C-alpha cells in the first residue's frame, strides 16, 4: 500500500517580485480553469497541489510575530518525499523556476540543478501538525485505474440485456469473466489494500483518556474560568464581511465539483492556549490516522485531504482542505457533523466565536462561525486536482468495486456489489 503524505513549503517572496509572482500564478490558474494546463498531470505522485500568497493582509487578526509576504506551496503526494520532490522539480521545472525566481534565495539560473532546486524547497519545508486522507492508500494512478474499471463495468452492465431471472451472483460472475478477458484490467486481479480502523490503538487511546478524566476536567474548568469567560462575544456576521475579499474568494470557487479551502488563524496568546491547541492537534492526528480511515473526517463525508499546520514559532496555524461540493455545504457540514471537534481546535485561535468548555458555543453559533471562517480564509492562487470529477465517496466506492469483483459473493453480497454502479 502506497501511503499519502503532506508537503508544505513556505518561502519568502521578494518584495519587488510580488506582482510578477501574482501574474505568473494567475496565468497557471487561468489555464487550469480553461482545461489547457497539461503539466501537472505528468507528476505521477501528485494528488492535490496549491500555491497561496500569504501576506500580512491575509491575516484577519494581528499576527503574533511580524510576518512578511510568503508563498505557500502545498501538495498531497504518494510515496516518499525524495521521489516526489525530484518529480516536481524535473517535471514542473519551468513552473518552479518561474515561481521561485520571485522568492528569496532561489538558485541563480546557472546554479539550477535538480539537487539545488530540491534543496531550496527542502530549506523552507514546514512540518504538518495533523493530516487527514479520505482514501488512505489510494495512489493517483490507482484512483484513475479503478475509475476506468468502474466505467467499463457500468457500460458493460448497461449495454447488456439482463433476463429478469438472472441472479445477482450470475451477473457478478459475468462481469468478472468480461474483465478477465480484458488484459487492460490485469492489475485489478491484485486486491487493493485498504486501511482498517486500528482498534488496539483506539482502545488504548480511549483507556488513556479514561485515566486522564480528572485532569481533563480540571483543565477544561481552568480554560473555562480563566480564558473562555473572558472572551468577548463575536458579532461579525457574513453580510458584514468585506465585499472585495469575499468576491476574491468566490471568483475561484465552484468551478469544479470540488473546491479548496485555505485558512490562516492566529493562536490566542499564552502558553495555556498553545498547549491546548497542540493537545487537540494530537487528538485529531490520532483519530485521523486510526479511526477516520474510510473517507470521513469527524463524520464529514466529503473531504479528500485536509491538514493543519502550525508555523511561525507555533503562533499561527494554517488549515487546508480539498473537498466535494461548495463552501456553504462544507462549512454547514462542519457545524452539523462535527461542531464539537472543530470548536475544540479553533477555540484556541483569535476571535473564534465564544465557546464553553471547548465543545459548545463556537461552531454551533452558526452565523458567527461562518463569518469567522470566511474572514480567516485566504484566496488560493493556484489549485490543482487530478480527479476533479470524482467525489471521495466515488473513490472509496470504486475500490470496493475492484475488491468485490474478485470475491465469491453470495446473492445478498452480489446485490450490494451491483448497487455500487
Amino acid at each position, binding site marked *: 500500500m502506497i501511503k499519502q503524505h503532506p508537503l508544505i513549503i513556505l518561502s519568502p517572496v521578494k518584495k519587488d517580485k510580488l506582482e510578477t509572482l501574482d501574474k505568473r500564478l494567475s496565468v497557471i490558474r487561468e489555464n487550469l480553469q480553461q482545461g489547457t494546463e497539461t503539466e501537472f498531470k505528468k507528476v505521477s505522485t501528485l494528488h492535490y497541489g496549491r500555491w497561496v500568497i500569504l501576506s500580512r493582509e491575509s491575516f484577519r487578526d494581528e499576527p503574533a510575530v511580524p510576518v512578511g509576504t510568503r508563498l505557500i506551496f502545498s501538495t498531497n503526494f504518494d510515496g516518499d518525499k525524495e521521489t516526489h520532490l525530484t518529480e516536481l522539480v524535473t517535471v514542473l521545472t519551468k513552473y518552479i523556476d518561474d515561481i521561485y525566481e520571485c522568492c528569496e534565495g532561489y538558485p541563480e539560473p546557472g546554479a539550477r540543478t535538480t539537487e539545488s532546486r530540491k534543496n531550496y524547497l527542502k530549506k523552507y519545508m514546514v512540518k504538518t501538525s495533523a493530516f487527514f486522507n479520505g482514501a488512505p492508500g489510494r495512489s493517483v494512478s490507482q484512483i484513475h485505474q479503478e475509475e476506468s474499471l468502474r466505467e467499463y463495468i457500468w457500460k458493460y452492465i448497461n449495454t447488456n440485456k439482463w433476463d429478469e431471472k438472472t441472479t445477482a451472483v450470475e451477473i457478478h460472475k459475468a462481469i468478472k469473466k468480461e474483465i478477465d478477458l480484458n488484459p487492460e484490467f490485469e492489475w485489478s486481479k491484485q486486491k487493493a489494500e485498504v486501511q482498517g480502523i486500528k482498534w488496539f490503538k483506539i482502545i488504548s487511546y480511549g483507556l488513556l483518556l479514561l485515566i486522564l478524566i480528572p485532569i481533563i476536567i480540571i483543565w477544561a474548568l481552568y480554560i473555562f474560568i480563566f480564558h473562555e469567560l473572558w472572551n468577548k462575544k463575536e458579532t461579525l456576521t457574513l453580510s458584514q*464581511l468585506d465585499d472585495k475579499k469575499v468576491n476574491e474568494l468566490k471568483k475561484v470557487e465552484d468551478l469544479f*465539483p470540488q473546491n479548496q479551502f485555505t485558512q490562516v488563524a492566529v493562536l490566542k496568546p499564552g502558553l495555556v492556549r498553545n498547549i491546548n491547541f497542540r493537545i487537540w492537534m494530537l487528538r485529531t492526528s490520532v483519530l485521523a490516522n486510526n479511526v477516520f480511515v474510510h473517507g470521513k473526517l469527524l463524520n464529514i463525508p466529503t473531504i479528500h485531504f485536509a491538514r493543519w499546520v502550525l508555523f511561525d514559532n507555533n503562533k499561527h496555524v494554517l488549515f487546508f482542505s480539498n473537498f466535494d461540493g461548495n463552501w456553504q455545504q462544507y462549512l454547514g457540514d462542519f457545524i452539523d457533523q462535527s461542531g464539537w471537534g472543530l470548536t475544540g481546535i479553533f477555540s484556541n485561535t483569535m476571535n473564534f466565536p465564544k465557546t464553553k468548555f471547548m465543545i459548545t458555543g463556537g461552531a*454551533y453559533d452558526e*452565523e458567527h462561525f461562518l463569518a469567522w471562517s470566511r474572514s480567516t480564509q485566504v484566496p488560493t492562487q493556484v489549485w490543482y486536482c487530478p480527479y476533479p470529477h470524482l467525489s471521495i465517496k466515488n473513490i472509496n466506492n470504486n475500490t470496493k468495486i475492484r475488491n468485490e469483483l474478485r470475491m465469491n459473493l453470495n446473492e445478498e453480497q452480489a446485490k450490494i456489489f451491483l448497487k455500487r454502479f
Partner: protein
Amino acid sequence: MTALELSEIQAYLIKDYKEMGSSKYYLMQVKDATAAKKFLASVADSITHANTPINETYLNIGVTSKGLMALGYNNEENLHTFSREFREGMVTPHRQRLLGDFDSSDPSKWQWGGPANERVDLILMVFGKNDTIAENYFQSLKQKFEPGFSVVHVLNGKPLPNDREHFGFRDGISQPVIKGSNIAPAGNNNDINPGEFVLGYKNEYNIYPDAPLLKVPQGNLELLADNPDRYEDKETGKTFKDIGRNGTYFVLRQLEQNVDGYWSFLKKQTIDEHGNTNNKEATKIAAKLIGRWPSGAPLIDYPDNDPGGNSDDNSFSYIKKDKDGEKCPFGSHIRRTNPRDHFEESPPGVSLKLTRRHRIMRRVRSYGEDFIGSVENHKPNGEVGLLFGCFNANISKQFEFIQYTWANSPKFKKLYDDPDPIIGVREKPGSGVNQVFTIPQKTVNKVIPDLQRFVTVKGGAYFFFPSVSVLKFLGTI
C-alpha cells in the same frame, strides 16, 4: 415558543393564497423616489398581513437591493447589513455557477431581471379571486403608485386545478409550517422554527439569523424595533434598530417548462424492438424522476402504480421503507430536495434535524395556458411554465443550497453523474459528460442516459419582504 407578531408579517409567507384564482406580479421601477416613498407609506396599511381576515384581494410587496437604493436607503453601512445574496442579486458570475443558469437559461437571455433587462426595484403582488377582481384592484393601486413607480414587467400566475403543474404532477404537497404562526402543525418534521423563515426569531440552530440593522439612523425610528441580539454602537452604546424583524427574503424565478420535450423524452425511453412506445412505462419513469406519481402519491407507499385521485400523503420517510432507493430513487427530485430522514449518511434522528435547516416555503404559480400535461397529451399552446417562488431567511443556506448541493450536483449522495432530472440538468454539459438518472433495482440498476434539460430560466430576482412597519418606515426615509 415565541409567538410571531402576525400583524407585522406579510401573509404570503404564512398562507399560500391557493383560493385566489389570479396572482399578478408587477415588477416595478422607481421613477420618482419621493412619490414612491409616499406610496409605500400609505399602502403599508393595505398590505395583507397574517392577521388580515379572508378577503377578495390580497396585496404583498417586496423590494430588491437596487430598489432600496433607488428609494434613498443608500447608506453603505446600512445596506451592508443585508445578506450578501440579496445585495448582489441573482445575477453574478459566481451565482450563475451555483444556480446553473447557463446556455438558454443564461441571465443575458432573460425576459426580466437580467443584465439586458430594465432594472427591477420592487415587486407588487396582487392577488384576486379572479382575473377581473385582481385587475381592478391593480388599477386602483396604479392611481396611487404613479408617478412614483412604473411597471417594467408583469407576470400572470395562477394555481392549476388540483395543484398540478404543467408536466402533470400534483405540486407543493410537502410544505413547512412555521412554529408560532397559528397554522395547524403539519407533523412529520415539517414544523420549523420561525427563524428559518422570519428574521428576528431563532432558527433551527437556535440562533438569530443574520438580519439587516439600521447602523446609521435614517427615517422615522419609532417604527422600528430593537434587534434581538442587542448589537450596539460601540461609541454611543445604543442598540441598532432592526430592519429585518418580521421580514424575510423571497426568491422568484420564472421557469419555462418544455412539456412536449419532457414527455417525448420519457416515451423515447420505452421504445421496444418494434419501435412502439409504452405509455404506462413512460409514466412510471416520470414518477421515478419526481418521486411521486402525477396524483401526488409517493413512490415510497405506491411503488408500482398510481392510485389516482389527488394525494396529500406526506407522512412517509425513507430509511425504514426504502434504504436502497428501489422504490424512490436517490436521484429523484423529491428525495434530493427534501431528504427527510436520509440526509447523506446520517442516522435518521440527525437527518431529520439537518433537513430542517434547509427548508424553503414554496410559493409557486403556473403561467401560460391552463394545461396539465400527461403521457397522452403533452402539446400545450404557447409558452407554459412555473413562477417558482420561495421564502427563506437565509438564501444561501436554503434556496441556493438546495439548488446547488442537492439539485445541480451530480455527486449527490454516492451518485456519479446524476443531477436532479427536473431542475439540475445542464443543457450543454461539456464534452464527455453523460448526465444520467439511476433507478436502483433488485439486481441491475436501470439507467436513463443522456438526460436533457426541460426547464429554462426566463427571469429571476431576490427580494426583501419587509414587515408592515418597516415598509411604512421605508416611506419615511
